């Protein structure tokens, strides 16, 4: 059965810290891996990764995919309180199935 596992499930850091969130997957016919940020409302899109080793970057956030080892990481540098959210990893397969992990709850304290 396809699965997406995120770790850690929760994380508490202080402003300015750097965090790394992990997502490992076992999916048949992998197509892409996506990261979403979910605050109190709807998940918002961060990155879509399809190729190994190519870093996607947006401001203080960056992500990379390893298709050989079947995982991705999301890095956030110089964290701010506004980064507090649940970060969701989702993996899409060629049959259009998109499976989400349980998420990592990040809390950034001032």
């Amino acid at each position: 059965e396809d699965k997406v596992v995120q770790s850690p499930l929760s994380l508490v850091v202080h402003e300015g810290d750097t965090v790394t969130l992990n997502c490992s997957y076992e999916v048949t016919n992998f197509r892409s891996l996506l990261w979403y940020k979910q605050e109190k409302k709807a998940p918002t899109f961060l990155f879509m990764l399809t190729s190994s080793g190519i870093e996607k970057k947006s401001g203080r956030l960056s992500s990379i995919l390893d298709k050989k080892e079947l995982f991705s990481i999301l890095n956030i540098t110089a964290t701010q309180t506004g980064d507090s959210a649940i970060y969701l990893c989702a993996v899409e397969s060629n049959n259009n199935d998109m499976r989400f992990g349980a998420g990592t709850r990040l809390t950034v304290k001032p």
Partner: protein
Amino acid sequence: EAGVAQSPRYKIIEKRQSVAFWCNPISGHATLYWYQQILGQGPKLLIQFQNNGVVDDSQLPKDRFSAERLKGVDSTLKIQPAKLEDSAVYLCASSLFLGQGYRGELFFGEGSRLTVL
């Protein structure tokens, strides 16, 4: 650009009652999804529409859940009768269909939070 609209935002019902949620996707998005997100878990796909046809409803509990997208735009998700374990946020999302099975990113609505007492 208007986002994905959902209503109601909150609903409290007693078990065995029925409830319906409505979703209006982003204009031009052919693909529409309903996800169920239970507290502490990631979203779980219930049903996926391509225009007005069902692409995947394998995880939809069909004895109590139903969904339709009659004109290929708005969609309604119904639960009848509701159970305690149906308490969750029901997220609607939409995406472009890019051809050859590829799609763009999912855009989510703010969700409908259901509490079943």
